[in-house]
């Protein structure tokens, strides 16, 4: 049986990789590379949010009846990250390295503390409450639009 925690933590790492590549390109002011790396990073992030919001969080909320609990907080933090991602996009278009690096630093701390809470608490709760359904849920990721 698949582990939600293992799968999703792996996806966090994949997003981190894309983040680091985009940031390195912006740091070098290589804007062509920064644009494509950032686009790939943003897409990876959107897909990760989508996997959680449309599949995992909904399943967890249905199962536990906790719509106003931890998943709500995680959804709010996704919105905060979307806000910073939008500003990173503007910085890439404006070729503004200082702005990009400042927003990236902010996003990194926001993203990492978010991931930590998911990996140490929420995913573990999911593996506990959604035991038996994990394979089906993870298979549904293939149907997502962002895939």
């Amino acid at each position, binding site marked *: 049986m698949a582990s939600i925690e293992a799968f999703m933590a792996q996806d966090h790492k994949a997003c981190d990789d894309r*983040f680091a590549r985009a940031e390195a390109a912006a740091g070098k002011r290589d804007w062509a590379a920064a644009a494509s790396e950032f686009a790939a990073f943003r897409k990876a992030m959107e897909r990760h949010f989508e996997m959680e919001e449309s599949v995992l969080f909904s399943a967890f909320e249905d199962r536990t009846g906790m719509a106003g609990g931890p998943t709500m907080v995680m959804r709010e933090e996704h919105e905060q990250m979307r806000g910073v991602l939008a500003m990173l996009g503007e910085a890439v278009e404006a070729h503004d390295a200082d702005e990009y690096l400042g927003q990236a630093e902010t996003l990194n701390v926001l993203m990492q503390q978010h991931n930590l809470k998911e990996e140490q608490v929420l995913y573990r709760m999911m593996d506990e409450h959604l035991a038996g359904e994990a394979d089906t849920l993870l298979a549904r990721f293939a149907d997502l639009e962002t895939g």
Partner: protein
Amino acid sequence: MAQAGLSYEQAPPVSVPFRFFLTAPVFGLLCAGLLVWRGPEVFDSRWMPAALGATHLLTLGFLASVMTGAMMQILPVLVGAPIPAPRGVARLTHLALSLGTLSLAGGFVLLQPTLLRSAVVLLGAGFALFVIAVVVSLARVRAWNATVGVMWLVAIALAVTVVFGALLAASLGFGIALPTGALHDLHPGWALLGWVGVLVIGVAYQVVPMFQMTPSYSDKLTSWLTWAIFAALVLWTAAKLALGDAGEPLAHGLALAVAAGYATFAVITLDLQRQRRRRLADVTLDFWRVGMVCLIAAACCWAARLVGIEGLPDAFDVFVGVLAIVGVALSVVNGMLYKIAPFLVWFHLQTQSTGRGTVPHMKKILGDDAQRTQFRVQLVALALLLAAPWWTPLAYPGGLALAASMILLLRNLLAVTRIYREVQTRADLARDTI
């Protein structure tokens, strides 16, 4: 049902950690003042009253202050365990610890038993309140993870440190006979190798991979290292207390194991940081690297003392103390402040704000250049203070450099709080005009 605390609402108000963060450089400045005032005396031996005063201004006034504030912030967010009545606990703990630290340092420097007596009461009460709040919060945790375990160890180590410290201070202040001379080693041992050291390792497990995107520490390491260090400290204490002189070889062996544990941690940390995926310059990273290099040096020097290399002067012990306190602990804590303080301000403002783009990003809240300047001045201070045990007149320039560094740190932290107020006021005005 484990109702895990991931909520922002469980994070304490921004004033809770900042109260402690802003106090730290003020005590650093007081320590610098003492160095300039008393000069060479501070570095003559670890037993000099001025040395004890300076040490506690840094360990209690700077380190314990930031660590207390940071733990109140971290516990609710990371382990899902809110501190009960955070505002009240923060206010009282902060007041008792600040006054207690002043009292203790004053008691040492001015040789005033009255001040030492009030220090025992104030510090005892302040730390008791804090430890009880932490224990209540940890006892509520239902989802156990590695961080929760480390926090328990840290709370216990702090309690042991405080009890041993209170006994030492009481023997001076109230003239009570000291139950055992071993406390002179046990108190600093538990303070630096238990409370500070284990907290640094526990925090490193989380933040080293986070900030620079390094590989994670291996599960093999994280599952045993802090527990092994803690167990060795317990056995070391037992050997010293129960076996007396006969226990010395055993105690030395255990102490060597602790030194080896810390050196291993430092080497692994430097190696992980070498493999970081974020390659851009970062002041927090540089502070960590200085701290880890000093940790390796401190562990090696301490091991040299333990295996009984002949002819090591008194200055050697003071040197190891400066390495551990200024080189390791102050560096790591200073570096962490530069991530925690701007992020907390950003996070609180972001959560209150309505419109996108109204909250400045972290590097606008505190710029790289301001951090870098303070880092460089702090490095100069560290170098001078490391040299001072060997040539004590260096206490004067060392104190001046430390003063400059602490003024810059205070200026940087005040700039962060000023931005918080400005953006908040703007947001309030905007809301009023709607």
